[in-house]
């Protein structure tokens, strides 16, 4: 069964190191997303798994077999590209059964395969149409059905939803996960979209500058990320600098730059250490004391409003309030903000500075 093992993969293009000593194991039937900003090496990595690129050093094993020298067509994988690559002069049905046709599967059997997979992506009614008659989401579903119809147990998705409208993308990502889970496939999905990664994956691998930063379930990466870059990349967060003023077992007191203090649970930092605290806006609350801040503006987000405030030490602090309470806050107003110490995560202050450590490009 297709477990994928990458051993010490490095890929150089001239002087550029696109992938830098990556070790990664993707379990059988696992849905793994490789998430990272442009230029982090994620596309190079998936192309190496597919066999479209031969790594400079390192090995790819699929289902226990070393893939060195094995071309893409012999790796038994389904591949879906960002730029929808359907045969324009083939009908939807013929596109889907292209793989089986190449493998000389009899016509009748091919018809059955087409029906099976087009039903799965809910396109049975579009079977006889040409790609140009479909909208973007339907075209990409056809690409998916074509990749699935090869019967491959390993599915590689290279930014499969990036070319689609935001709203279509949301609907399709739910479908995507449902389909691959039903078929029990091993899936590697590459994306720069952290929301997409969250909603489809069993596990997310965060890449930056050719290397793997960390990996974990969506919940782990959102609630207890190991690195401050991840904390900022997989969701919006407040980053507040300070130092450890007091230690009480696993609990610490951190003094922020405006000399207000917060208590954080589960923190390993040493007494006196310079730290940065990551706290998501939904865990910051207006209270009777705490971090004194002045509101700059409010943004309406449907079920809640996000308020942006600035502390006396000029740090930006964002917090969420239910939409109905939005009226209670207005620009210029001063508020005291309290931080939920259970939800805060503390990191050593990066040597290069916080803004450099979380830079997106």
């Amino acid at each position, binding site marked *: 069964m297709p477990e994928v093992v990458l051993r010490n993969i490095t890929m150089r293009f001239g002087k550029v190191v696109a992938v830098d000593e990556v070790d990664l194991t993707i379990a059988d039937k696992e849905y793994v997303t490789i998430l990272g900003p442009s230029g982090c090496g994620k596309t190079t990595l998936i192309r190496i798994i597919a066999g479209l690129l031969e790594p400079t050093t390192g090995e790819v094993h699929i289902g226990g077999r070393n893939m060195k020298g094995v071309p893409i067509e012999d790796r038994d994988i389904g591949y879906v590209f960002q730029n929808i690559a359907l045969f324009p002069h083939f009908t939807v049905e013929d596109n889907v059964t292209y793989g089986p046709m190449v493998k000389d599967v009899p016509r009748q059997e091919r018809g059955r395969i087409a029906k099976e997979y087009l039903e799965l992506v809910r396109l049975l009614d579009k079977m006889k149409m040409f790609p140009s008659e479909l909208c973007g989401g339907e075209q990409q579903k056809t690409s998916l059905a074509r990749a699935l119809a090869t019967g491959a147990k390993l599915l590689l998705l290279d930014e499969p939803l990036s070319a689609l409208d*935001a709203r279509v993308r949301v609907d399709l990502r739910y479908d995507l996960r449902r389909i691959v889970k039903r078929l029990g496939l091993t899936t590697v999905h590459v994306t720069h979209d952290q929301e997409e990664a969250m909603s489809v994956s069993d596990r997310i691998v965060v890449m930056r500058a050719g290397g793997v930063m960390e990996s974990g379930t969506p919940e782990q990466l959102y609630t207890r990320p190991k690195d401050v870059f991840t904390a900022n990349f997989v969701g919006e967060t407040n980053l507040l600098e300070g130092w450890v003023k007091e230690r009480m077992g696993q609990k610490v007191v951190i003094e922020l730059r405006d000399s207000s203090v917060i208590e954080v649970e589960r923190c390993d930092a040493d007494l006196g250490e310079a730290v940065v605290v990551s706290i998501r806006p939904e865990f910051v609350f207006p209270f009777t004391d705490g971090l004194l801040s002045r509101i700059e503006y409010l943004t309406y987000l449907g079920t809640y409003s996000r308020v942006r405030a600035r502390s006396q030490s000029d740090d930006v602090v964002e917090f969420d309030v239910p939409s109905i309470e939005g009226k209670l806050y207005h620009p210029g107003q001063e508020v005291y903000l309290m931080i939920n110490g259970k939800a805060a995560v503390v990191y050593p202050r990066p040597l290069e500075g916080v803004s450099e450590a979380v830079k997106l490009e």
Partner: protein
Amino acid sequence: MPRISLQGVVKHYGGIKAADGLDLEVNNGEYLCLLGPTGAGKTTALRIICGLTRMDKGDVLFDGKSMVNLEPEDRKAVMLSQTYALFPQLTVAENILFGPNIREMPQEVKDRTLADMLDLVRLTHRPDALPRELSGGMQQRTALARALATGVDVLLLDEPLRALDARLRISLRHELRSLAKSLGITTIHVTHDQDEALVMADRIAVIREGRIVQVGTPAQIFDDPVSPFVANFVGQSNFFVGVVEEKREATLVRGEKGHVVLARPCEQGLGEKVVVGVKVGNTEVHKGGEGFFEGRVERILFEGRNIFLDVDVPELGRLSSKIPSWRLGRLAVGDLVKLNWSADKANVFAMPTHGLERELKVE
């Protein structure tokens, strides 16, 4: 800065109606997002406003003055395309000064413009860089500076953030908006991304098939959608089809299978067939207590701030709910749950004549 009016604008390409009687008013200095799916006619509208496309019928006015007979360069409106189209062989400074050079502005004005623009888009340290040496965000800012350097009154942005990474897009939203607002220019920003529109716009105009469906503040568009399409396009919604059975402080709607739900007061009469729409974020799920429906949790997805739940309701199908993720762990797949909503969060719409499925289509 001008107030922009589009009046009955029509533009057909063969059988395709890119603009089909488009009416829109944009206020002086306003940041308006034109939101709609691909093919709705968003880009066509921008091209007509700046004069790059000639309309078949209708009028475009800036401050009440018709622009129909003015050439694009005389309208003081500039359009920024989604691909930026910087000159690859020119530096940042040369790209920014492209317009002022063509207009043969005095050197002194050009120097000042360049300094102002570099400062505005925070590229003071990179005037001599070539576009390919810059990150995506910097290229986007260079393109913006070039567009603004000719002294425009109207800024037309065609999916300005599309080419950027998702996370970067989110962090640049506020920057782009405040830049336009600080210059006081009238901005129309075209997007297919409803989150982007909610966050950035003073007002949102929802466009579909060449017509404006609704114009309003983000709160109005989200809370008081005029149609099931808008309700589902801006934030997802659950829909329930039924017949108006009672009209008091709330509307009582009964479905074919006997389920009963409450919704806001409505115009429709007793016995009329209607669609009730509720945002997934306003659809509550709980294990005990009362609910309009009962079903089993089919799937739970952790999405960061929120979790997304699918609940399978016998005889009705799948309903979804978005709840804060701190409730994760209190609900599990297979749990029997109740679903409900407060009546004032549920909108009542007339049953669309072409059917609900066709109405909700997003492409």
